[in-house]
Every structure is written in C-alpha cells, then in structure tokens.
C-alpha cells in the first residue's frame, strides 16, 4: 500500500520539529487537566501559487507558504482558542495554556485512545504546484488568452489567472480522533471586456476542483472557459434594462444553485439553529419546500471543489439530506454544535486555517433532479425572467431574506427566451422561496468549481448545483417597470 495521508501529514507537520505521539498527548493532557471537556490540535501546512496574464503577457506570479497549529479547548458551550505559526512543542504548550483559560473549574474531560482512520480517498494526495512546469503553466495561460481574443474582434481586454493549493492537515482530538488529509485544489479564471460602439461589458468564466493543473487541459476545459467568458460579454453587449418587481423566475442549471446556498444552506447550519437565530430554527419535520425539492449537502463527490476526505475535525465527510421532498430533514453539524444539540457531526466542521476556529459549513450543496425537461419549464412561463449566471449572494440568517445577483439573464415572453437583460439582484425569503418551486428539471448540473463561501470572516471553497427550476414569484431588482 502506498504512503497514507496520515504518514504524509506526520512526516510533513510533526517530524521536522521532532514532535511525537507522547508530545501530542502531553499537550492535550495539559488542557484536560484543567477540566476542559475536550480539546483538539489542528496542524496545517499550505502552499499556494498563482499566475496572472494580462495584456497578452504573464505579468505576475506569487508563491505563499503558511504553516501552523491551532489549539482548541472546549468546556460546555465555551471555546478557548490559540494558535502558533511555529510547529514546535513549546509553542503548542503555550497555546494550550492560553486555550484552556476558558474552563471554569475542574472537569470531566478524558483523553481517549487515538484511533487512526484511513478514509476513502475522493482525490489523490498530489501537489498541483509541482505537477506542471513553470513554462507549461505560462504556455497554458497564453494559449487561453489567444483563444479568447480570436473569438471576436470586440474583445479588448483579457485577464487569465490560474492558482493551485497544496494543503496538508492533521487533526488530533481528546475524543480519540486521529486523522489527516492531503488536499489539492486548483482554480482557473478568464475575464474579458468586450467593446462595441462605446459600450463596454464584461464576461467571466472559470472552474477547478481537487485535482492538478492537467484538469484544465483535459477536455480543453481552459479553452472552454475562454469561449464562455467571451460569449457572456457579447450577450451583455445586447442587454436591455432588467425588469423591476415580482415575477416568475426560471433558474438555469449548475451555478444558479447559489440560490440554495443562500436561501436555505446557511440557515441550516447547526450553529445558527442551536442558538435559535436562524429563520429555520426548530423547523425539522416541517414543510419548507414543495415536494419537488430534495436538497443535499454532499462532501463525498470525487474531485469536487467542496469535497473533503475528512473535515477539519477529522470526521469523514458525508452526504447529508437537508430537505427531502419538501420536508426539512436535518442540519449540517460540526462536533461542538452536534454535541450541544444531541446529534452526531455530519462532517461539516470546517475552518479557513489553523488560525481560525471550525464552524458548521457547507461542502457541495445541491438539489436533486426532477422530472421536467428544461424546455417544458421555459415554455410554461407567460412572462418572466430566465437567469443562467450569477455573481454571488448573501443572506440574513435571522430574517431569512436573501439576495443573489444575476450576471446573465433573459426575458421570457410567451414561453420563449427573448432579450438578454442587464444584471440584477433577486431578493426573496429563504423559508418561503422553495415553497414556490413549481417545476424542477431533469438536468442536474454542479457548478464548474468556482465557489468561495464567507462566514464570520472565514473563506472556504464550496460547490453548488441544481437542475433548471421554476420559481413562481421572486422579486427582481431591475430598473424597468414597463
């Protein structure tokens, strides 16, 4: 058998400082000695590189290395946290002293014997940064730039960027968890400006996943991003003012699943529900969507941007049903919130880095396919909006109000897609919006691997997806009231 992730992680994170199992025991033991219920250590090393092409030349490249360890002590609902960007024993002991300061008085914490897990591999432990030579990387960027420019003479500016991350994590917890993960992540983006008769519009496209850079040369993916960015910019050159007011909205498949992420995803994260601050608090078992809607959060899809072999608490990622045929089934949990709510972690404990605390976070969130062909859904709309591409979104967890901003949309008139309209923000109410989903397509797609989710200042890679979907009424924030 080849070297396991655990071996790789020990080798990279612990061996250089001569830290052994006894030392880890000592650090955890010191915390529990102060009657902390549980504690964990999170070791992480990340290497990131990025390349940017602009004006037809590769202008910039950057390289970043970070490593460190986070020490967390939990006592009831309290969390003490400290971290160090040096992985050495004295720094770990100092951090554990700081973290345990949270505990009130003598406690029950017990150190469990570690049980190393060897989970299934959803992606290979590769380092994308070293997987392709620098001249090949530069060549790929140039090839994509040329592809974008040759599409249309109206393309005036092209910016192409490519980034790769190699991340190694090791989690040791007083509950007996000993787990490691080696996570590659690559990302490619093309953005273009098209100009015609004094009007300028942009288009952008990209993708990526837990893979290596060859992902972009396979199936000509990177060239496809160039063509897609150009197509969007040219469509936007023709766009008329977007309508304003409530109307029927049909969302295209794939990335428009950002609706699910904002409208229901965040509201179903365990922390908000434990605290009762979510518009979905206490609604398990209730109808929150039409029976056409089944929504899952699935961290187990091979190679996806939001996938994880184990989460940042060492729990295997899962496929968690959030909404089944319209009924709210479950929340996404990390260990802390799961324990306080009397359930099991769903493998959604994620953190931006060793310097941040884990929280319940999404992985790949999507709606399962329905029975309608997409053409039938469009044809069913007398007058409405067909939105196929979005920028991003945001949600107010408590009131349930959410927005997401269309970057490519069309009018639907008498069952036909007609003029493209300018970008507009769509706004709705999370607990209501899926109750207005009257048709779900049979064309489930996941996004191309571009999503980043921000929560309490922490950014992590996520995925979304959905089939074509008809929402009977949603407020469109355009400027045209005709």
């Amino acid at each position: 058998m080849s070297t396991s992730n655990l071996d790789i992680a020990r080798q990279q994170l612990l061996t250089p400082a001569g830290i052994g199992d006894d030392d880890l025991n000592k650090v955890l033991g010191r915390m529990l000695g102060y009657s902390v219920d549980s504690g964990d250590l999170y070791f992480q090393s990340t290497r990131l590189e990025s390349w940017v092409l602009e004006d037809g030349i590769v202008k910039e490249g950057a390289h970043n290395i970070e490593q460190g360890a986070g020490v967390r002590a939990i006592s009831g609902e309290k969390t003490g946290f400290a971290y160090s960007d040096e992985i050495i024993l004295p720094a770990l002991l100092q951090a554990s002293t700081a973290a345990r300061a949270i505990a009130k008085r003598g406690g029950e914490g017990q150190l469990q014997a570690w049980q190393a897990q060897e989970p299934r591999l959803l992606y290979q432990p590769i380092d994308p940064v070293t997987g392709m030579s620098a001249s090949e990387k530069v060549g790929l960027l140039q090839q994509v730039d040329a592809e974008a420019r040759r599409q249309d003479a109206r393309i005036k500016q092209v910016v192409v960027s490519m980034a790769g991350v190699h991340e190694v994590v090791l989690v040791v917890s007083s509950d007996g968890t000993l787990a490691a993960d080696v996570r590659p992540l690559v990302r490619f983006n093309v953005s273009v400006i098209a100009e015609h008769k004094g009007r300028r519009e942009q288009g952008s496209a990209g993708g990526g996943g837990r893979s290596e850079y060859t992902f972009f040369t396979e199936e000509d993916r990177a060239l496809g991003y160039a063509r897609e960015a150009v197509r969007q910019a040219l469509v936007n050159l023709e766009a008329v003012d977007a309508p304003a007011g409530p109307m029927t909205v049909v969302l295209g498949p794939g990335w428009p699943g950002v609706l699910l992420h904002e409208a229901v995803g965040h509201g179903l994260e365990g922390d908000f529900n434990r605290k009762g601050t979510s518009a979905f608090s206490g609604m398990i078992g209730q109808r929150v969507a039409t029976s056409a809607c089944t929504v899952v959060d699935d961290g187990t899809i091979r190679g996806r941007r939001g996938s994880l072999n184990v989460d940042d608490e060492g729990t295997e990622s899962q496929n968690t049903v959030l909404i089944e045929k319209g009924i709210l089934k479950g929340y996404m949990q990390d260990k802390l919130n799961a324990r306080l709510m009397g359930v099991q972690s769903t493998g959604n404990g994620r953190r931006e880095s060793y310097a941040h605390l884990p929280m319940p976070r999404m992985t790949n969130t999507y709606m399962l396919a329905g029975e309608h062909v997409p053409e039938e859904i469009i044809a069913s709309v007398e007058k409405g909006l067909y939105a196929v591409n979005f920028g991003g979104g945001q949600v107010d967890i408590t009131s349930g109000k959410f927005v997401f901003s269309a970057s490519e949309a069309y009018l639907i008139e008498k069952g036909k897609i007609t003029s493209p309209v300018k970008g507009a923000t769509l706004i709705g109410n999370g607990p209501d919006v899926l109750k207005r989903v009257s048709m779900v397509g049979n064309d489930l797609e996941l996004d191309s691997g571009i999503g980043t989710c921000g929560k309490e200042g922490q950014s992590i890679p996520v995925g979304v997806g959905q089939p074509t979907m008809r929402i009977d009424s949603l407020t469109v924030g355009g400027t045209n009231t005709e």
Partner: protein
Amino acid sequence: MIAGYVMSKHPVVENNDELPAQSQLDDIVGLILAEATSQGASAADAGVSVETGLSVTVRLGEVETLEYHRDQALGVTVYFGNCKGSASTSDFNEQAVRESVQAACDIARYTSEDDCAGLADAELMAREIPDLDLYHPWGLSAEQAIDRALDCESAARELDTRITNSEGATLSSHVGLRVSGNTHGFAGGYRSSRHSVSCAVIGEQDGQMQRDYWYAAARDSGDMSSAADVGRIASERTLRRLGSRSLKTREAPVIFAAELASGLFGGFISAVRGGSQYRQSSFLLDYLGKQVFPEFMHIHEQPLLKKAMGSAPFDAEGVATRPRDLIRDGILESYVLDTYSARKLGMQTTGNAGGVHNLTIDHGPNDLRGLMKEMDTGLLVTELMGQGVNIVTGDYSRGAAGFWVEGGEIQYPVDEITIAGNLREMFLNIVDVGNDVDLRGNTRTGSVLVEKMMIAGNS
C-alpha cells in the same frame, strides 16, 4: 454584569500587547533584500508585519469564545530587469526567508518583460516617517475584555422584552507593527492598534424575527463609545426593524445611512483606480477633468490624519503619502494610482499602492433628520445585501432594508426590497451629504441623499 465567571483561579495568559522591537523586523527586511540581490535580482521590495491581540465573544451572559491571535507575515517582490515575481510566508526563520526569495526569483524567470514593472521612483520614497499617533495598546486582560463584552450584551438584552435572543457581543483588541523596505534604500515602519466592540441581538414580534448590530472601532479605546452604548444602539436598531414589510415597486429618493454610504464611494474609488482605467474596466473611463458629482461636492484624501483608521505615512510601495483632492467642485481631479498603473497611463503614482487613506467626503449642515426633511418622501436605507455593483457599466442593484419616510418622518420599517440605478447617474443625483460622519472606517462620510432610484418590492 453577569457574575460567576472566575478566570483567575488558573494561570491566565494576559492579552499579549507585546510586539517585537522594530529593529528585529528591520533585520528581516534587510535579510530579504540582501538575499534577493545575491540571488541576482536587480531590485526588490520587502514587507514584514506582526499582529497580536485577543478577541472574546460572550453570548447570553456567558463566554462563548476566547481567542488569542498572533499573526506574522513577510512578503517579497523581486525584479529581474522588468520581470517580476512575488512570494510570502508566515515563517520568519532564515531558511524560510531564503526559500521564499528563491520562490519569487524562480517565478520572475518565467514572467514576461513589462516596461511598466519595477519599484516606484526613488525620489518619491518616504524619507521621514511622521508619527501619526496610531499606536494605543488597550492593555486589557482577558477577564477585563470579557467584562466589557458582558456589559455590552447585557445593555442590549435589558433594553426591551422583545429582545429574545442574541448573537453575542465581541470585543477585539489588536496591535501591529509593519516594516517595509526596498533596494532604493527606503526603510520605514510604524506601530498601530485597532480596537472594536460589537453586538448583534435578535428581536421578535408577531412571529417575525429581526436582527441588527452596531459596533464601535478606534485606534485608541478612549475614543470609542462605551460598551454599554454599543449594546443599547444594537438593540434599538433591532427593535426598530420589527414589523418590517416589503414595498410596492416604485421610483423614489433614497438616503444611504452614513454607515452604508462609504460603499457608494467605494464604487467611485474602484472606477477611478488606475487598474480599472488601464484595463478599460470602468464606468468612469477617461473621466479625468470631467464632472462626476454635483458641483457642491468635494472629496479628498487625508493620509496623515492623527489617530484615524485609514492613516499611513507611506503606501505599500514606500511612497510618501500626502493629502490631496480627488473631487473638487464635482470634477475628477486625479485617479487613484500605484506605480504600475500610473506608468501604464503615462502618469505619476499618487501614493495609493494598497488603497486610499481616509477618503473624506465634505458635508453640508444637515444631520440625518435634516436630510429626511429634505427628502420628504422616500426610502432611508440602513442595510444593503449582495454584491450587485458592476464597475464596468456602473449598473447597481442590491438588496436593501430600512425605513419608509413620509413628511420627513419614519413611517415603518421595510425589507425584502431591492434598490437599483446606475452609479454614474446616482453620483450626479446626490442632493446632500449629512454631517453625521462615520469615523469608524477608512471612508469618512455622512448620510447621502440621492434624488431617485428604482425600488422593487413584492407587495
């Protein structure tokens, strides 16, 4: 105060306000530059920073998290003639520094010749580093920080029985030291501090839940409103949102409350930034000398303001910062440029590598009430959602919440609406800027009244 939290029984690490001596970071900058030169770079630029502090969050009268922060980073940019490479790391040991410089040099071997790449001109470097009075450590122990956060949250929760839940109150206190240098011989550094207290509470009425928040932030804790005031204001803001409803789609005047108006001017800065200009990605392309705002408006930068949140003696390239006008009598006087974008445009850097410093919008005599009287009927926006601002076209469409105003008085709270327009027109349609200036951030503006926008709602 919620009693019963005993921290002193155990050895407690006090808030560590200790920063390394500047000479230590100077040495690292020196090592980076020497290493870059010895690896063959013709020019190099280095920055090293250390930040330390703590943050505590209390919720429902109990401590929820206590976090100790210590972050350090170093960055290097090397030039081999006109080819550029960059690298950064959190590891300060000599071996890691060498490897980072090596990584930057390796990249520079593959980037292209670019006439405009390089350090800023030597004569623009900051020579004297003025003391801008930015460093005021608070010196709170974790216990004291927790007490203040508890004061804040209890003031919020005790205000009204409709406040039924809380996301908590957070106190955070950080100090930092930043040192920069380059192969022109520039070397400079300064310490700074940043403290904040914030609170978010949830109110409930007739089955509707609403949340709002408030915060105080300053370089010097003595310049901040009290923790209890922050809690009380957070609570008042939540309460006044209870009973929110949507609006009917209509065109109406809009007031952007001061705490949101900075975002409008953020759109302006994005459009006049050198990068947006040379990439032709701006709705204000080639607007130098043209009218962007109404004639009564003046916008300027005050980088050397004592104690202010956006002050800095030099920019990210070591260029001395200086006060200057961006908008005079509504006319665009200057772009916002770093060295690279300036050279692309055939201009000189404006000392804005890394952004603007204390962007200041001059205001009239009216307070927010005065603005509402002036508006008479329209929308007061107190929250915006989403990213719907297109800097290439100026198209603007965002989710909003706030209050419907008639006869200059608030009538009822509104949410689940959008406001839309085009920034170019919105800027020209600004009617007044209030004197209720928000000093907590890098943009210093009062509330802004815009003559008309399209409001979409579902009722």
